């Protein structure tokens, strides 16, 4: 028996090594591989779509293999750190979130694409994201998959909608009143926001604040105070789902019907919406005195410095940012907004187009801000300043005081570079 085990073990080791060796040869015989590491399109269905519908035609046409990998922003940076500092650059294209773009640019890990973009005449990148994707007048990131915030409601909440409120023009006060009505009627809060620190609360609040004329990230301006009041009123009526502190994304609670109301990321809202179109209603984010505020997130393509396949990478990016491909990509991946102006011409009238249309409405007509992460030492720490206010005032039903907000602002300002 023991002998058998030894033999088995040895066979296993040898066999696995042989197999690995075989594989290696296969890899070597294959055409050029372009490594595409992305934080975007992480849901499996989106991955599948990107691989089969977007990458494949390019692969066939150019005889390359696109090695598509999903990695979160932090790991992507860690990986780049190792690759850049040990001269083993194997990643060709990265897709980063705008809150982390500054780190990429400042570390000098990505190529300056200004000249290349200048040569593409058929597309105009949305101005909303220049702050993040460019630095010192140079373009490093090509925006893709922009998002704004949309209102998503479970139809079970519709009966509580205050009379005369039109979901397409709902205001923040009406939204709050609605949330309170739901909480009172159901005996339990149903509004979803992300309660786990350093997730999306800063954006959820930021959209409200922008609607009231505040800047971003403002914690204590007059507009911000008005925004806090909206959320305070929901908090005082215990309008948040009781498990709010454990939520890091509203997708699951909305799908489980633990929560019925939320204003969040359009692609994720679209994902929930698609899970049962007859059960959910999608609307633009609520408005305020100065319009519909929303933080606009975006991801961006960039080429790693030292990429061995620079020309091919440029070619692939040219392909990916083509307006028709941008639209195809946006539609196949849950409703991101294509941040290329020309792309709008390609939108149709399917349900998904409606999601995108609503989002574009917000992006075009709303009060939109990007994420000025580059101005701060650490964007996560900025988020924490907002999270803290939420945790010790709104959540507990306490009053928002100017003093508390000033403290939060001090917290934010201390993080300025």
């Amino acid at each position, binding site marked *: 028996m023991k002998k058998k*085990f030894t033999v088995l073990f040895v066979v296993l080791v040898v066999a696995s090594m042989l197999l690995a060796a075989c594989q290696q040869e296969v890899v070597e015989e294959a055409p050029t*591989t372009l490594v595409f590491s992305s934080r975007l399109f992480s*849901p*499996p269905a989106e*991955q599948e779509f990107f691989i089969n519908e977007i990458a494949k035609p390019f692969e066939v046409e150019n005889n390359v293999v696109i090695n598509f990998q999903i990695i979160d922003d932090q790991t992507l940076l860690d990986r780049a*750190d190792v690759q850049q500092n040990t001269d083993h650059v194997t990643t060709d294209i990265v897709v980063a979130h705008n809150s982390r773009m500054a780190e990429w640019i400042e570390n000098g890990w990505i190529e300056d694409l200004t000249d290349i973009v200048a040569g593409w005449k058929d597309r105009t990148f949305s101005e909303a994201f220049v702050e993040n994707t460019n630095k010192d007048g140079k373009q490093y990131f090509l925006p893709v998959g922009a998002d704004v915030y949309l209102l998503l409601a479970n139809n079970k909440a519709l009966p509580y909608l205050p009379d005369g409120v039109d979901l397409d023009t709902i205001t923040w006060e009406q939204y709050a009143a609605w949330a309170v009505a739901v909480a009172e009627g159901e005996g339990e809060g149903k509004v979803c926001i992300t309660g786990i620190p350093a997730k999306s609360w800063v954006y959820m609040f930021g959209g409200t604040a922008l609607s009231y004329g505040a800047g971003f990230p403002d914690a204590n301006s007059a507009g911000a105070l008005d925004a806090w009041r909206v959320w305070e009123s929901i908090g005082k009526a215990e309008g948040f789902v009781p498990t709010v502190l454990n939520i890091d994304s509203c997708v699951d609670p909305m799908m489980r*019907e633990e929560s019925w109301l939320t204003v969040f990321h359009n692609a994720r809202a679209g994902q929930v919406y698609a899970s049962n179109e007859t059960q959910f209603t999608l609307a633009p984010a609520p408005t305020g005195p100065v319009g519909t505020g929303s933080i606009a997130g975006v991801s961006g393509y960039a080429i790693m410095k030292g990429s061995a396949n620079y020309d091919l990478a440029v070619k692939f990016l040219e392909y990916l940012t083509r307006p028709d491909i941008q639209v195809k990509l946006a539609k196949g991946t849950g409703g991101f907004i294509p941040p290329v102006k020309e792309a709008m011409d390609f939108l149709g009238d399917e349900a998904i187009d409606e999601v995108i249309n609503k989002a574009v409405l917000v992006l075009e007509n709303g009060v939109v801000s990007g994420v000025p992460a580059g101005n701060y030492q650490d964007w996560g720490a900025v988020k924490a300043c907002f999270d803290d206010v939420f945790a010790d005032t709104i959540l507990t039903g306490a009053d928002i005081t100017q003093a508390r907000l000033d403290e939060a602002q001090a917290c934010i300002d201390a993080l300025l570079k």
Partner: protein
Amino acid sequence: MNRKVNKKIIKAAKDTVFYLFLTTLIAGMLLPVYFIVSLSFLSTREAYRYPLPLVPALKTDFELTYGENGYILSVWDRTDKEYQTVLDTNEVEKMEVYIKARLGTKITQEEIRAEIARLENSGQESIFFTKPRSLLYNYDTFFKVTRDAVPALIRSIEIAALTILISLSIGGLAGYAFARYIFKGKDALRFSVLFVRMFPGVAIALPMVFILAKANLYDEPLGLSLIYSVGAIGLTIWITASIFMGIPKSLEEAAQVFGGSKLQAFMRVTLPLALPGLAASAMYTFLGAWNETVAAIILTQFKPTFSVVVYQTLLGAQGNVNLAAAGGIAMALPALIFTFFLRRYINQMWGGVTV
């Protein structure tokens, strides 16, 4: 004679109680595991129902009726015991995709068209039909989305095997020294071996990766094995030391007396005797190497481990807990198989062999 029967009955009763107790205990312990497994077979829609269905459905019941935008598709909800609408559309393709992806149920566009025709021809307000569920849909999707799952799986086994090899050979030598020799600084050395485990590994994971990458072990399975061995060696030393201590030295001496060199004596006598224990200690190493992601994801590019591809697939599994469950189970399965075959040796792990 009566007494004999009584005794038998009492024994049977005792056994029954004992096994009932065991069953309850195991059921309690494995309840969470049951749910994650069950979840991995549920359709996305059912995975988000509350209360959660206790067992996966084997079929899906549909109701088809006329709606605003075309046809309203409803499915039987086991939780609420009613048909609930899910789609109101005219597009057959959309129905097919939805039924496949959200309900984990096999259906073709032709079949949908046939049902629609049946509705139209029946003159009734609605019709009902039933389709079998594809239970393995989540696993199917998982392996479809997870690129190179099979090579990654093989690579992971290879890396785990290499890690076992490295940590057992290097750690085993030291363990042997601690078990068989008396020397100056033995206690201090043994304690410092333990100290490696005391220093939080998360704090130095990245620098270690840098060292590896600089040593041209970037994207090499060997590189990862070397990193995993750092954590594994310390434990291996402690385990092997107690295994070797459990094997009487005289067995080895006898082999020397009867014509073997020290090495032969070790290979022919001590090693075969230690093997079960070593194999069991290999299990710890295997599990550690198998489940590790942090270093692997930074250090690999073209040769990811299975844990990395699973991680990449599941990173965005929000709204897809059933898929996450399937991925978790797919990852756990090889480890469980490994454990299953090694469990018989585990008993012998810490004290060695009794002669």
